[in-house]
């Protein structure tokens, strides 16, 4: 039987806020990510998606439950796990050129192999020739592609992405989705993607998980049975796409209504 590459079991995270009160962010979240699977997480704002991703990555120890990476409990960021954050401008190092930023992801390799890998990764995301530019000399979409190259350059087995395309315009977003899909289908890594965009989640994923409002649990799991390879126009205009979109959206809205019921407001 195939083992999941990442396994989150009954994850519970409580955070202490400034005034000292303890807030339960996730109550009970479980999920399995199989090798080379593409899974998306959608859920109301503030439902703890970023918190979940940080715990899954070993950046924050959970208050309860367990995270397993390839079968071993995660205590620190595992080798073989990479992340792309939403805020590329806070994630790329502004004092390093694009090439050197990508090389940060390939730290462990010997120098000549590293250079080779960095060039390949940049070529893959369409940034050939931009090695010596600084991140701020690039557009937002290009910066996020650089962050993607940095995450991919070490051939990880898991890529975590936290709303990676939320800060770029719609056209760039479509393009970046296809860049990720192409990278993913050519390699063997699994993806866990957090997004606000239901269409994006469906277009990219094998499964979509809907998170409830805080303190969060997994409300629903929707299998995406659209055939691959997918493309923006063809896939998104299928009747099945519309059905899945309605189904996921309904669950998300239910989660949002629950949130209103509990908090009296939507954040």
């Amino acid at each position, binding site marked *: 039987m195939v083992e999941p590459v990442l396994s989150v079991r009954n994850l519970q995270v409580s955070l202490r806020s400034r005034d000292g009160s303890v807030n339960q962010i996730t109550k009970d979240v479980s999920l399995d990510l199989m090798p080379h699977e593409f899974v998306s997480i959608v859920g109301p704002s503030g439902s703890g998606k970023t918190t979940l991703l940080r715990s899954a990555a070993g950046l924050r120890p959970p208050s309860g439950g367990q995270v397993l990476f390839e079968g071993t409990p995660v205590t620190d960021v595992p080798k073989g796990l990479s992340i792309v*954050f939403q805020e590329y401008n806070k994630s790329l*190092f502004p004092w390093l050129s694009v090439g050197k930023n990508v090389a940060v992801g390939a*730290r462990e390799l010997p120098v000549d192999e590293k250079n080779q890998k960095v060039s390949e990764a940049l070529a893959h995301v369409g940034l050939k020739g931009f090695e010596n530019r600084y991140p*701020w*000399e690039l557009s937002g979409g290009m910066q996020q592609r650089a962050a993607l190259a*940095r995450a991919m350059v070490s051939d990880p087995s898991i890529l975590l992405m936290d709303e990676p395309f939320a800060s770029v315009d719609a056209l760039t977003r479509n393009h970046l989705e296809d860049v990720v899909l192409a990278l993913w289908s050519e390699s063997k890594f699994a993806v866990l993607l957090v997004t606000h965009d239901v269409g994006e989640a469906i277009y990219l994923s094998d499964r979509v998980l809907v998170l409830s409002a805080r303190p969060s649990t997994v409300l629903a799991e929707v299998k995406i049975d659209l055939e691959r390879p997918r493309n923006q126009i063809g896939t998104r205009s299928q009747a099945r796409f519309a059905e899945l979109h309605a189904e996921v959206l309904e669950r998300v809205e239910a989660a949002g209504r629950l949130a209103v019921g509990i908090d009296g407001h939507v954040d």
Partner: protein
Amino acid sequence: MSTVALGWVGILILAAAWQILAILLHKSVFPTFVAAIAAAYHIVTGPALRTDILPSVERTAVGFLISSLLGVGVGMLVGHYRAVQQWTATVIDFLRSLPTPLLVPVAIVVFGLNGKMVVATIISAAIWPVLINTANGTAEIEPTMMDTANVFGLRGRKLFLKVILPAASPQIFAGLRIALSVSLAIMVVAEILGGSSGIGYYISNAQQSFDIVGSYGGVIVLGLLGWVFDTLFLAFERRLLSWQRGTVGGFIDG
């Protein structure tokens, strides 16, 4: 006209105003600009260059460098580790609020009337702007950036040297520049209060022996020293912070 040229025009106007005012007032306590410049020239070309100017330059540089290294090192620890910050906050607040001139007698007792005393006094004052700025700069680094460092295995020494140091460098440099002018000022104060050589000693000595023109010359030399130090510092800063948006050769967008 370029800013440099405009700067020179400003200096010329000031010099002319000084010259005319001094001639009109005709007071011995207020020598003319030309006389003061001549005295300054005399200082930098005479034996005082070796006995007073160079020792002062060396003390300022050594005091500033030690303050910088200590301030940046300790500042990064204070800014990064919450526990260190909590344990040191009161001590740091207490030490930095001690008025430096009061420390001169202590330094004299410990080191004697010499250069070491001056260097120690400089450090006691110049370390704080570096330490505080570095600690703030470190504490304000974006959490996403620290997460990124962690994900890509930059920990321990590498975290400090390859991430925290560059990420906090704009604020560190702001602190260093203040520390540089503090170093110069404290150098003079310490040498006046308890020196046996140096530009501060030269100025107070000239004053006490009624060599008014000589003391004005000393002040002009001091001003020039400050200008040279600041210019060198800015050139260094521009080089190291060249990655900052808008400062890299000519490529400015938005």
